């Protein structure tokens, strides 16, 4: 039995039973990283010494007979856009390639407090802008199920690391699908929580009204455990919600009789891979067998979500990324003799093509004369999209759809066509605009490539998502399949 392939809850039992030590688990993870990361390229920084120290500390605690938490002594990988004090945080950008944060993000502090063992930082599309992890300034991450294909993005490194068993779980961030789409492409469980439930303090900002941190895990139970560990109000994030984080394990019963599920017609568009369609049809049948009531419904403004997203996300990004000026931290051009030239050159050299494209689009959408036509218009249509969900959730507990119209696509296939690349997020972005929680759960394969099922819930409705996802997962078992990287 390879320890690196197990879940956090399985490993916790083994630690409690003194069958294994945290050092053994951590060594198993690093051994796997050494074996396969040359092919997968999920990680940009390894924190071997810190991890081994931490693991030894947990083992000492167990030896002293002290109690340990559910995630204590368990390896984790953190997306490289979350600040880790004393450990490089690059956003996979030349702009931050030498940035060592003087503080840790709240999620990182919470995991440290919970005794997590951070083994490394994962690759992403530069500043989380992209859907394939090909926009990293360092290297592209590969899909463990087919190394010729992308892992999805922007949290492709975090998703691939879990799928390839290079970690037990990981954290990603989701602005328009950046957790769910790579979770779907890599065949792991991913959660985009309700906006405001997980602190964004220390997350490098992309689009602040949409960004949310969430977990990647090997099963639903781990996903719920990790979410519970990172969620909660944080005074350091002014958009943080005040709410009680429940113990979700009670909802993992497998019993979903009477659950009402709506299936939006707008999410079954032309161009959807027939394999995706049949996997989703199969999932609907499974939910019906389990006693759920599934009905077709409508989210009529779905077709407007993509243009709204690309106006709002880029507008917010252009404002957030204005801070990279080569003064306080980050890349500075050394040749300029005056400050304005220094700003321009530092930014032009420090940012990659997609980041500059989005800054340009966002700056244009916010510029004088165009603000009402683009930005304000998009904010108003955002209201209509949110109202679609409000109405649907009056009738349904869950809304079910595919995560993406296709399984993982080939590397290089879409890099030169921004709109084609943006279209891969067409089923995931409405969730961010509406601020609701959504999960990706493995629901089948097409020619050896995983397909993800999207379950969307009411604001703060993570519990019902876990309940439905757990029942589905336990009765289908797709999550148990592993890619072959030998």
């Amino acid at each position: 039995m390879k320890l690196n392939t197990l879940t956090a809850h399985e490993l916790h039992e083994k630690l409690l039973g003194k069958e294994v030590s945290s050092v053994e688990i951590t060594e198993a993870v690093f051994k796997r990283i050494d074996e396969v990361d040359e092919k997968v390229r999920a990680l940009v920084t390894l924190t071997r010494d810190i991890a081994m120290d931490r693991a030894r500390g947990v083992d000492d605690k167990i030896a002293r007979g002290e109690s340990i938490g559910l995630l204590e002594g368990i390896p984790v990988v953190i997306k490289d856009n979350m600040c880790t004090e004393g450990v490089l945080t690059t956003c996979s950008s030349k702009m931050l390639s030498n940035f060592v944060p003087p503080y840790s993000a709240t999620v990182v502090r919470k995991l440290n407090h919970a005794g997590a063992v951070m083994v490394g930082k994962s690759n992403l599309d530069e500043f989380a802008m992209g859907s394939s992890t090909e926009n990293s300034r360092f290297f592209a991450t590969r899909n463990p199920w087919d190394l010729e294909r992308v892992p999805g993005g922007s949290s492709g490194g975090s998703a691939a690391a879990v799928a390839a068993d290079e970690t037990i779980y990981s954290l990603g961030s989701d602005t328009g699908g950046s957790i769910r789409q790579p979770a779907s492409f890599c065949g792991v469980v991913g959660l985009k929580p309700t906006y405001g439930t997980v602190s964004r303090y220390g997350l490098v900002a992309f689009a602040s009204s949409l960004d949310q941190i969430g977990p990647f895990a090997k099963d639903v139970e781990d996903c719920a455990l990790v979410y519970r560990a990172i969620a909660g109000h944080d005074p350091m994030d002014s958009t943080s919600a005040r709410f009680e984080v429940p113990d979700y394990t009670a909802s993992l019963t497998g019993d979903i009789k009477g659950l009402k599920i709506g299936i939006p017609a707008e999410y079954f568009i032309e161009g959807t891979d027939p394999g995706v369609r049949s996997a989703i049809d199969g999932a609907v049948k499974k939910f019906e067998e389990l006693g759920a009531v599934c009905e077709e419904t409508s989210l009529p403004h779905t077709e407007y979500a993509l243009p709204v997203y690309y106006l709002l996300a880029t507008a917010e990004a252009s404002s957030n990324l204005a801070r990279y000026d080569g003064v306080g931290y980050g890349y500075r051009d050394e040749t300029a003799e005056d400050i304005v030239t220094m700003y321009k050159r530092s930014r032009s050299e420090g940012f990659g093509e997609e980041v500059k494209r989005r800054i340009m689009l966002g700056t244009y959408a916010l510029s004088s004369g165009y603000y009402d036509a683009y930005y304000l218009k998009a904010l108003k249509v955002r209201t209509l999209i949110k109202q679609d969900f409000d109405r649907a959730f009056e009738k349904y507990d869950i809304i079910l759809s595919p995560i993406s119209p296709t399984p993982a696509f080939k590397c290089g296939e879409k890099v030169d066509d921004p709109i084609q690349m943006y279209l891969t997020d067409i089923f995931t972005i409405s969730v961010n605009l509406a601020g609701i929680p959504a999960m990706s759960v493995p629901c089948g394969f097409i020619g050896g490539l995983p397909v993800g099922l999207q379950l969307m819930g009411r604001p703060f409705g993570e519990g019902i998502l876990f309940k439905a996802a757990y029942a589905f997962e336990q009765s289908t078992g797709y999550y148990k399949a592993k890619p072959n990287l030998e």
Partner: protein
Amino acid sequence: MLTKEQVEHVALLARLELSEEEKEKYATQLSAILEYAEALNKLDTENVPPTAHILPINNVFREDRVCDHLPNEKALSNAPEKEGNYFRVPRILADGGIEG
């Protein structure tokens, strides 16, 4: 279609220096994306309020009191260039006023 002049103006606002090739590429690509966004004009939003933020949170206040803060040396630890307790930058004042 965005003109080259418009692209140059936006680049100036965004403090980006673009090559001729980039200007042409962005003009074409941004135009295509904006054209795609024209779809929003099909919707009448006259009486729809904008949603800038999804949670019903208003201003968040806290007590104004002294607490722990980042020490100077840590705040300066990533500076590309520093002098004493300051970030050092290239010349800001030209003969006759502020540059740019």
